Every structure is written in C-alpha cells, then in structure tokens.
C-alpha cells in the first residue's frame, strides 16, 4: 500500500500554531476601507428626491409624500450601496457594522425614520405652516 503524499505536510502542520480567529473571545477580523455595512440614514439631510426609491433593487425605501422623506427597512437591504452613490445630499451612508443578527425581522435597528418620528415631523410641519400663514395674515393687515 502506498502512503498518502499528504502525510509530510500534515506532520509539518501539526507543529504549527492554529491560524484561526476565535471570534467571540477576540475582536472579529477588521473590515477593509469602504466596507459596506449597515445603512445609515440622516433624516435632516434628506430632501425627498426619490432617487433612492428608483435605484434600490430590494425595495428598502418607501416614499412619504406628506413629509417628503423616505422610510427604510434595511431587513431587505442587499448592501449594494447604489442609494449611497446616487443620494445628492449624502443623507445615506454605509457604516462598518456587520453583526446584524436579530430575533425579529422588524427590529428597531432595521427601521430608520419610524412611525412616531414621522408623526412628530408631520405635526412640526403643520405648526410651521400655521405660523407662516399667521405671519402672512399679520403682514397683510
């Protein structure tokens, strides 16, 4: 019977250190530059141009015409970064976060610009509108 040609390599490797990353005990392997991690959305910068809605291949964005913003559910995100490239105001960007496991697909961390925030902004906008009208009336008088 012939001996396996792998035996010398195996014996040599037995004397070496293991080349593994013991993840939960140590830091994970560092991410490279321009890593595409969790999507981050800046509501204040958003102007509601709907470019991200057009370009997204995964249906992450829903446009809200009343407030002229978008709401995001990154549970579906495929990390293609096209929305980041197309956004004219840099309201969207990719972070370095990649440990995104969750028990709930509608988890807080997957949803940007939540219902309460939308309602808040709506109220704020209405107040602004009223204030403007009041100012106009005052001017006319």
């Amino acid at each position, binding site marked *: 019977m012939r001996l396996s040609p792998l035996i010398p390599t195996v014996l040599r490797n037995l004397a070496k250190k293991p080349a593994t990353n013991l993840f939960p005990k140590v830091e994970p392997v560092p991410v490279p530059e321009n890593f595409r991690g969790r999507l981050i959305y800046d509501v204040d910068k958003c102007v509601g141009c709907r470019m991200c809605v057009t370009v997204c291949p995964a*249906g992450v964005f829903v446009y809200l015409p009343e407030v002229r913003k978008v709401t995001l559910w990154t549970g579906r995100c495929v990390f293609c970064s096209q929305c980041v490239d197309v956004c004219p105001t840099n309201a969207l960007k990719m972070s370095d976060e990649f440990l995104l496991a969750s028990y709930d697909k509608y988890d807080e961390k997957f*949803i940007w610009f939540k219902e309460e925030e939308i309602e808040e902004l709506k109220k704020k906008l209405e107040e602004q509108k009223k204030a403007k009208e009041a100012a106009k009336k005052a001017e006319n008088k």
Partner: protein
Amino acid sequence: MDEAHTVIEAPKEPTKEEKVVEAIKSRFPNVEAEIRENKLGRKRIWVRVSREDYKPLMAFLMELDPQAHYSIGIEQDFGDSLGFMSHLTLFYEDDPAVSLLVEVKVPKDDPTLPDISDIFPIALQFEREVMEMVGLDFEGAPDKRRLFLPEDFPEGIYPLRLDEKGISEEMVKNAGHPYLLRRGGGKP
C-alpha cells in the same frame, strides 16, 4: 497616395462573416441577413427567417460547419407575435468565431415552429423552456414535459407572456414593507 491605397485594398479577402452571409443568401433568397458591428468592434450576423425556411436554414448551417455550436434559444413576446431567437457559433477553430443569430417570428393565433432537436440535440432544452414560458409549440419535439415550472402551476398560463395569458395580479406576491403593513395591506 490615393492610387496606392486602392491597389492595397483591391485584393481584400472577404471576412468569415461575409462568406457565411453570402452562402446563406445564395441558398435562401428570401432570408434577411446582415452583419452588425457593436461599439467594441465585434461583428455578428443577424438573420431574420420565415417559419418555412427556419428548419432548412438550421440544417444548412449544420452543413456549412458540422462543428456548429448552438449556444442558446431565446423566446420573446412582441405583442402580436412571438419570437424565437437562436444564437449559434460557427467556425470557431480560429479566433474570432462567427457569431450568428437566427430570429423567427410567428403569429400568436398559430404559435407553432418545427423542432430542430434532430439537428442540434441541445435545442430541445430551450424548446421545452419556450413551450412552458410563452406557449410557443414545437411540432415533433420528442420531449414536451415542463422544464422549470412546478407541477402545480396552472395550465394555459405562460409566465413570460405580456397579454392576458401571462401571470395575473393575484399571482404576484409581495412580502411587504413594515411601514405599509402597519397601515393594512402590503400593496402600495
């Protein structure tokens, strides 16, 4: 200078594409064949053929180059007619090979084509796909079973059709966005 140019260009050899087009046109006078060049300089022969000439043309191409390679068959819905396009590669011993596309259009009220799997055996796979996806029937195909669609898919519905025989609104499912789900109904 000008004269020298004409002297050099006069004995210009016809390219492989031109030879193939010439051969097709001399055998089938009713067939439209033209050479198109894309922006990268790749030449392709586009052949538009009638249903009657389709099978003889395929047999002739096999005769022209017994090593001819059938790459892919593509089905398409043009509204009032169904199209079937075959992409073949001929004379590929020396680079670049001749790339040839054969297009047939058939009316929707009589969607039949002759089967060519006795000439190119692999064509049968594409024909099976065409039969289930747009309902274009290949007469005399030895195997007419479905290829990709599941067993429980309804009969008489062809997914790639753009008319009423295609998939209906109710068959399209969307897992839904949480914002829209919370306002009842996943559809925007």
